């Protein structure tokens, strides 16, 4: 079940124009997970150094600390909830955290994609799925 909170919804809201950048972000995270599957978590630590990628870099370090999935989710949620960000910037951080949790759970690439795609909005999510999986039936659109 997905919970709903008006204040959080407001905090996550951003324009369609801003959301246009999300599929690229998700594709980058899929690549990151692929690299992890090939070389392990230690091959990624220190590799993510983008301006807005603190949570990704620190999150990977927390995964290597062996924190359980529940603890990781709780700690990352605290970082997000208490952050000063809102709008698109906040949404991006949420996507990073969702990706971290999926990586920590050992999810497959397909599952990671399906967890991240909904953050792009229904239409962009389908386009993203279709781009990643060309065999996807057209009637799903």
């Amino acid at each position, binding site marked *: *079940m*997905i*919970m*709903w*909170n008006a*204040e*959080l919804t407001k*905090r996550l809201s951003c324009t369609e124009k801003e959301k246009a950048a999300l599929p690229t972000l998700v594709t980058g995270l899929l690549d990151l997970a692929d690299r*992890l*599957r*090939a*070389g*392990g*978590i*230690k*091959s990624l*630590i220190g590799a993510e150094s983008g*301006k*807005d*990628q*603190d*949570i990704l870099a*620190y999150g990977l*370090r*927390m*995964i*290597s*600390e*062996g*924190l*359980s*999935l529940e*603890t990781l*989710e*709780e*700690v*990352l*949620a*605290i*970082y*997000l*909830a*208490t*952050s*000063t*960000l809102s709008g698109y910037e906040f949404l991006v*951080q*949420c996507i990073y*955290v*969702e990706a971290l*949790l999926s*990586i*920590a*759970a*050992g999810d497959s690439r397909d599952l990671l994609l399906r*967890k991240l795609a909904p953050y792009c909005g229904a239409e962009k999510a389908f386009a993203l799925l279709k781009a990643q999986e060309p065999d996807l039936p057209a009637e799903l659109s």
Partner: protein
Amino acid sequence: MIINSLCELHRNLSLEVKKGGAEKSKPPPRPKNAQAQQEKPDPIHLQSRFAAAPKKTAIYLELAARFVTNVWHYQKEGKERILSAAREEKRRLVKYSYSLIASSTAPELVRQAFCSAGLSSAAGYPDECESEMFITGTRLAITKAHPVVIMRSMTAYLGLQVFDQVESWLLEHFGEQGEEDEELIIPGDLSEILSDKRISPGQINLAIHMAGNQLVAASLAGCPRHTVDLVKSLAYSRLGGALLDWNIREARSRLSSDELSDAQSAFMELLGSLDEPNPAELRQEDWSSGVDESLVADISDLILELDERVLKSVVAGLEPALLASLIQAMEPIAHDRLFSCAPSSRSKKILNALEAATPLSLNELTRRAQIFAQKVLSELAPKTRHGAARSLQLSASLRQHLTSILSRE
């Protein structure tokens, strides 16, 4: 799903009004270390609204550290320790936390208990950051969480700015165990499988993530120390390694030998399932099944039977791309022999060529196998004019493999 956790936190935190010691305009706290101050790391993008001035942050960290240390002693020595800490504690909020832990309050009632005592921001407590830190810490302490988990969760309210500082403190206090545990060896193949170089670090990491901490600890509890160290080096930070050791100790004290053995089997099964080919590999397998099996056998046997010196010269004298395409038509055991006869730099080139290689038709493969066989013959042929007059000294089986390859059309 992170959205659910965020919903819950948004319900509990009063996000509109900033309370407590935090002031957004103040600079984030810097580490005490003078050298670290000079290096001036990039500012953290994800700032906490509770990020406070260094002095205030230091107070929060000191409170959390004291709490976690007392909880650690309580976990090791029993209730009397936490009662004694409660008696000595002057701060009302912290004292109250200890009393809730000592009375084993149900974890889900902790927030409500803080609220009833007027110690949550909803009940008017002026420092929301401190209150939230201790509600979280108390709840985790009651569930017997490891101090590392408690400290990480409590200090998350202060933001990523204190992450490294907290790590240093945790390493100092929980990074090393006093004395090394005795090994407990449960007979099984896990140790050997993990040491097998054919299993990639990525696969081991993935299996660890899929299995979860409990199963990983139980699986490793019956393995020799070097196996545990190998896993730590592949998937855990120093702090993570200490936490893994703690979980292993827990597993050894809690589980029987049979249960540890079952855990090993379950983990091996999980690792094995990651070896199953993905659809792309299956397509490759379909193609492989179309290769002439007798050609594969001839090439493989030729490589296995050749004198090491001769094979080394052949490998050194052929293009990496040709060797890479031949690899598509030989058995794995022959791959190993071929690579063992190539210097590492050349092996790397062959592997690169292999990555770029596309599946070849049977005719193309046969042609490459014949070039390989001719090179073998030229290496075996006497190099002096004197020797050229003599017939080649070849074993019957080598002669048969070479003839079989070279006579193909």
